[in-house]
């Protein structure tokens, strides 16, 4: 009896938290079908905003920038971070702690300070703000997350397999790609995915490092806050959300060929 009540309370609690997390998303989805542009009025059902989504050059340009920056920054951060994680693994304790301490700064510091400090350094060294400065900034805050997800996997892999590969005549590069990399691949992939997601969702650091002409979806939305956001934005984010939802669902729940 007590067990059943407990289970019921737990279910209710889970439901409450999920409602809290997902109700804003549901709101945006509903608004994407709203004829009225006002956020607090239902003007009838329309699919118009979905058709108009790519009419706006500003939106399609911002989408392109967002995806490019997310992809490139995640890719470069994954390479830098994986190499760094392997290097750190071989370091002595003190240099390792210093290295990790500095590396963690962008992750632990306030985003506003990271954004401002990067803006200052770009301006001080005469680098004009634009796509490339946003990309550099995103790489900077992504690398620590990659290291964080690769390092534990490295600790689990045994040094002997790498040495065995070399004893059997594999050059270090080949030994790395055929022996070490497959072992740490889950960490590398989750690091990449995390970096991609964080870059995609970032506003604050982009806000300070983007310069005038360039927009990502975040900064475009922020610039529209005062004059009212085009419901096409809701439509676009609904599409992105549904696509990601389906992809994640598929990768999580489809039967896996190879059990890791």
């Amino acid at each position, binding site marked *: 009896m007590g067990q059943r009540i407990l289970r019921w309370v737990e279910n209710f609690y889970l439901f409450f938290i999920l409602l809290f997390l997902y109700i804003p998303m549901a709101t945006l989805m509903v608004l994407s079908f709203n004829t009225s542009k006002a956020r607090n009025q239902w003007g009838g059902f329309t699919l118009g905003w979905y058709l108009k989504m790519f009419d706006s050059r500003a939106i399609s340009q911002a989408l392109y920038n967002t995806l490019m920056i997310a992809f490139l920054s995640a890719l470069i951060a994954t390479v830098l971070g994986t190499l760094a994680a392997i290097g750190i693994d071989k370091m002595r304790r003190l240099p390792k702690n210093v290295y990790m301490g500095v590396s963690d700064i962008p992750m632990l510091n306030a985003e506003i300070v990271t954004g401002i400090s990067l803006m200052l350094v770009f301006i001080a060294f005469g680098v004009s703000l634009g796509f490339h400065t946003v990309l550099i900034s995103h790489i900077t805050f992504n690398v620590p997350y990659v290291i964080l997800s690769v390092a534990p996997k490295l600790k689990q892999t045994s040094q002997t397999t790498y040495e065995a590969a070399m004893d059997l005549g594999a050059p270090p590069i080949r030994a790395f790609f055929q022996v070490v990399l497959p072992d740490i691949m889950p960490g590398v992939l989750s690091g990449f995915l995390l970096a991609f997601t964080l870059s995609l969702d970032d*506003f604050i650091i982009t806000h300070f490092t983007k310069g005038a002409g360039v927009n990502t979806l975040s900064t475009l939305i922020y610039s529209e806050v005062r004059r009212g956001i085009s419901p096409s934005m809701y439509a676009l984010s609904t599409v992105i959300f549904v696509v990601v939802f389906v992809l994640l669902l598929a990768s999580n729940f489809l039967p896996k060929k190879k059990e890791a």
Partner: protein
Amino acid sequence: MGKKLLAGPYLLWMVAFTVIPLALIVYYGFTGVGGGFTLANVAAIARPEHSKALVLSLALSMVSTVCCLVLAYPLAMVLRGRGIGKGSFIVFIFILPMWMNFLLRTMAWQTLLEKNGVINAFLGFFGLPKLQIMNTPAAIVLGMVYNFLPFMVLPIYNVLAKIDDDTINAAADLGANFFQTLLRVWFPLSLPGVISGITMVFVPSLTTFVISNLLGGSKILLIGNVIEQEFTKSGNWHMGSGLSMVLMVFIMASMLLLAKYDRGGEGTTF
């Protein structure tokens, strides 16, 4: 030996894009508009409009951190009890919202919280009193809890998932009731996760300017808003850097405090 060199490229990157930028903040913070050393930018935190913003930020971020902890801990326990997979489903639930833009998600709360918003329509339907929290500190706290809750749940869940069932059963066998087990077993073992959750929520809450902008109206200024305006509106980088340094002192102080507490916690596990 050669492997250590692989850490080289990112070492250069860190110097260029983490160390030098922070050094620049310190440089700007300690110099005046005309050049020359000054403490005026740091001392400017004592101005009433600045100190008021800082105190409000500290208060709201503490409230939001406590709310997140109170919501997240039982949630993490329930999720652990259900033994849902290897954590992939948990991550799935909490990371998925990030794919819908942070600003849009936060703005959706405007629609929900407004005087004629969804929540009030719902309350009105049942004849309940209206909720009027839009453009108040309460709405800002709600926005913080909503945005940062996952950063509290995930680290706590991760440490809870590692606790062996035998440890819990042993406590029960030795006659501990639920609350004793919670206080003497669960909580001490999960402290590292709790500590990292607290920092992950406290720092972004303390320094946000976006959530206060979107849900607090334009009247409520947090320290993040003050700094942002120094850079984008007033164009006084020296003042902005000085105030940023004050902010960083608070961030570091909170981390040191927590790190010390963490070590103390490990010592009293038995």
